[in-house]
């Protein structure tokens, strides 16, 4: 397990042992290609065999089969790929393969398509995979907006529409926003804290490979009889239990995505706690690391709850339990409590890493230290703690115990305080700075302005009486898109543009990046701002058809969303072309101070020749002579010495 010990000998690599046995038995795509159908056969035989011998009818029961397939086939596929090899060898007492680092790093594009233990390769795998699902889910949004452009039904029937809504949200949340941050964090956290890799590289590789599996299960639900699951991404009982079999694909897809999320969070926590370079105290951690530290705590504590909520639904359907079966005394509001105990913290899982990215970007491009660094870190912790006490604000009109609305409202409104601290501190970071308007900075500034709108509409929704009017209307649709698109997605773009030179060694096109930003900024507001009004006026969410009085504003929303979709193509084009032919970036194009910029772009296979020595805070812009970290034992002035030497007042 320990990589630290192994890395000491990183460069004394042994030649990989000659492959044993025929190629069909070597871990890889070929082995996966026969293990996948084999495990499909095993699952099918298991279910039908048991049912046949027990005289259960029907023998071919799609419900049970789907559960068996979505559990066993992914395991077979992963085994073929070799994701479990190390552990299986160890368990079975066979000699484990010598750690020769042959599964580490990327020498060609092929290395991105195998079980790779390099955090940098895994980071890129995550980001590219999640953007793929972002594009698919975005395309679904285009279909929905095309249907909603005019009232009445045009080209998707209500079942198709509800399916699109549900899969769009599910992919965006579980296959894009949550994991893309895991990808960016994977790439930069070890570099930022001066570690050579993550604490558990094999677990890290496994947690990536769980993700495409979750995505495929969710998308495959479109192929099942009755169409994709269509009870919304919230999958409320009892509508969920009334649905066709494809609802199981949501219930099982979420398990794989959730497992992936938990494993990564565990890895982040252990890495951040135990693998910081000498001198890297918690109060010297870049805010991105603080943000991922708090996020990972949220993930580990909260994710089991959504797993549980979906397992209860699954048991109701497949094993005929009665958790949410009203006729047998089930309690349907109970589902919502369990679901939101994860899904509200999930909002912070999707925001805190973005807060971290924005702190890095704003500080670098204003050439100033983050204002109020410690309060910025503490406010993340405050959000983490408060975040667990607000879940029922999604249920103000649900018929839950009515007294619960008041404490939940108070905690919800209080979260505005640490969030406000962050916004004001970002603005103070800009103050008197020397602002450079590079693409990442535009996204970070765009984020602050859009997120403020989403945050303020969140305060309105947090008040019970206001929520009684606005709950489940387009006002909420506007709110979540200002928070998750204007918020999270803007920070994701800021992060990708910011670290693109580090990841690829090349610069992206600044012109295209700016076009992408401005087109997105304008079309995003065209698409979503009027939805506040439409919602307040009386248009409910998740409808395939609506009152014709809202027709014009819906048309405007649709036009905005099509431009928004087109602007994303600029981004994809920019990334692909720049990766191949962009200008060479150099190690530190932004003149930033954190450790990832001290090493080459892209960094060498094991990040550092020598473990860096951390000597000061991460944002010492403007402090003469001050450094955050040094490599190779170089001597530098500390912050205090720097102040003393230059006479700059502290």
């Amino acid at each position, binding site marked *: 397990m320990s990589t630290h010990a192994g890395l000491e000998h990183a460069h004394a690599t042994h030649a990989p042992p000659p492959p044993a046995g025929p190629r069909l038995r070597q871990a890889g795509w070929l082995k996966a290609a026969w293990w996948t159908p084999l495990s499909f056969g095993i699952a099918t035989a298991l279910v039908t065999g048991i049912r046949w011998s027990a005289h259960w009818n029907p023998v071919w029961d799609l419900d049970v089969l789907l559960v068996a397939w979505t559990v066993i086939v992914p395991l077979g596929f992963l085994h073929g790929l070799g994701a479990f090899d190390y552990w299986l060898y160890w368990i079975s007492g066979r000699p484990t393969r010598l750690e020769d680092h042959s599964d580490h790093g990327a020498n060609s594009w092929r290395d991105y398509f195998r079980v790779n233990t390099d955090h940098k390769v895994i980071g890129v795998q995550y980001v590219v995979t999640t953007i793929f699902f972002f594009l698919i889910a975005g395309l679904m949004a285009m279909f929905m907006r095309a249907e909603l452009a005019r009232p009445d039904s045009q080209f998707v029937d209500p079942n198709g529409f509800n399916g699109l809504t549900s899969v769009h949200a599910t992919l965006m949340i579980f296959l894009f926003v949550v994991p893309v941050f895991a990808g960016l964090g994977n790439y930069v956290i070890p570099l930022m804290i001066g570690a050579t890799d993550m604490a558990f590289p094999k677990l890290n590789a496994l947690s990536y490979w769980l993700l495409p599996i979750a995505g495929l299960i969710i998308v495959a639900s479109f192929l099942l009889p009755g169409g994709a699951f269509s009870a919304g991404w919230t999958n409320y009982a009892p509508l969920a239990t*009334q649905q066709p079999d494809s609802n199981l694909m949501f219930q099982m897809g979420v398990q794989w995505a959730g497992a992936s999320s938990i494993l990564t969070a565990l890895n982040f926590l252990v890495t951040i706690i135990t693998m910081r370079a000498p001198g890297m105290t918690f109060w010297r951690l870049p805010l991105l690391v603080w943000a991922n530290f708090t996020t990972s705590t949220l993930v580990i504590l909260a994710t089991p709850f959504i797993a549980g909520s979906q397992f209860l639904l699954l048991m109701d359907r497949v094993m005929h339990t009665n958790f949410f079966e009203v006729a047998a005394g089930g309690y349907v509001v109970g589902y919502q409590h369990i679901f939101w105990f994860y899904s509200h913290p999930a909002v912070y899982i999707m925001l805190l890493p973005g807060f971290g990215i924005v702190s890095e970007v704003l500080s670098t491009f204003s050439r100033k230290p983050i204002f109020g660094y410690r309060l910025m870190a503490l406010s993340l912790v405050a959000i983490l703690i408060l975040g667990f006490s607000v879940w029922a604000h999604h249920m103000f009109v649900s018929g839950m115990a009515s007294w619960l609305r008041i404490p939940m409202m108070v905690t919800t409104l209080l979260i505005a305080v640490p969030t406000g601290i962050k916004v004001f501190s970002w603005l103070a970071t800009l103050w008197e700075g020397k602002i450079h308007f590079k693409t990442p900075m535009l996204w970070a500034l765009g984020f602050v302005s859009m997120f403020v709108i989403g945050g303020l509409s969140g305060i309105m929704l947090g008040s019970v009486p206001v929520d009684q009017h606005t709950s489940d209307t387009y006002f909420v649709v506007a709110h979540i898109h200002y928070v998750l698109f204007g918020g999270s997605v803007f920070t994701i773009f800021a992060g990708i543009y910011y670290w693109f030179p580090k990841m690829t060694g090349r610069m992206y096109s600044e012109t295209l990046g700016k076009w992408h930003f401005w087109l997105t900024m304008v079309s995003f507001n065209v698409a979503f701002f009027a939805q506040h009004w439409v919602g307040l006026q009386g248009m409910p969410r998740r409808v395939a058809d609506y009152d014709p009085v809202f027709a014009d504003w819906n048309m405007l929303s649709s036009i905005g969303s099509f431009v928004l979709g087109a602007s994303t193509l600029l981004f994809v084009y920019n990334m692909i072309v720049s990766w191949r032919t962009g200008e060479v970036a150099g190690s530190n194009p932004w003149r930033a101070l954190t450790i990832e910029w001290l090493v080459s772009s892209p960094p060498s296979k094991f990040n550092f020749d020598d473990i860096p020595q951390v000597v000061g805070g991460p944002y010492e812009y403007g402090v003469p002579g001050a450094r955050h970290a040094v490599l190779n034992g170089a001597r530098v002035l500390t912050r205090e010495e720097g102040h003393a030497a230059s006479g700059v007042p502290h």
Partner: protein
Amino acid sequence: MRRKLIPLLVIMILSAGAAFALAFAIEWLPEQASVQGKRIDQVIWLTVVICVVVFAIVAAASVYAVVKFRAKPGDEEDGPPLHGHTGLEITWTAIPTALVTLIAVWSGIVVVQNDRLPEGSRVILVEARQFAWGFEYPELGGIRTGELFLPVNQPVELRMTSPDVIHAFWVPEWRQKQDVVPGITTFYRITPTKEGIFPIVCTELCGLGHSVMRNQVNVMSEEAFEGWLAEQRAGVDAGGTDLGLRVFANQGCAGCHALAEAGASGAGGPDLDSVLPGQSAEQIRESIMTPDATISEGFSSGFMPSYSQLPDEQVEALVGFLLGAAGGSSG
């Protein structure tokens, strides 16, 4: 510092002005037509004012910073190393805390007031089912209607249940909203203050017909309401109302279907006045028991739930009534 403050204040006032203009020049909310809605609107406007002020401060600070502190071309210098300011940090922790406390206290008071059941409230039982609303007036001996009729300025408590999935009852003009949850009874307390016809909207995703699960409430003067009540009572007392018509009303068919004979004008499903003529009793029975067997053009399957749980007597009465209605309209 003063040289910075004055332009900053000017931008702040300008952006606050623009935001207030946006907030107050546009009709953001529909007409307000209930006692409870009036209280809710007060909270909405309180939060709007606070939000607009906060927005103006943030907008002004960012616009000023972006314009004023942009690096000149070729300027590679760093900004001054300002690491924080304790006074400022306390200020922007304390003021938002005070503001959200104000919102919380005011909202709490409104919640308590709106939850209170006024003396002499009329009770109406509401059943939400996929995808129709049914309203039952206990003082009418259990007669159900497909549309809600209420007297103005009289408090009413809706006791709501659902036999299938979760729905939500919302009248935008009344502001209040409440989920209708299978297995429990939820309450919706309202005192309408304006006469008129207002939409009832289901806001909780309840299946294929969710977007057409709309209905309306008729708020009328007290005299008109008493007249309507008397009319209904007369029908019940005389036992005169056709059982088929009653089933049609009780089951909420009018929520989706238009039928002149029953005074129904639902638009979610096929217009019965045009699809019924020419149908045999057998075909009509099939459409009630297994609706997906034959689908009218322009509509999709899975929409209409089966009514096979109805007693045979009621199904036959309904078929008979629909046959008569079809005959009447076609000739």
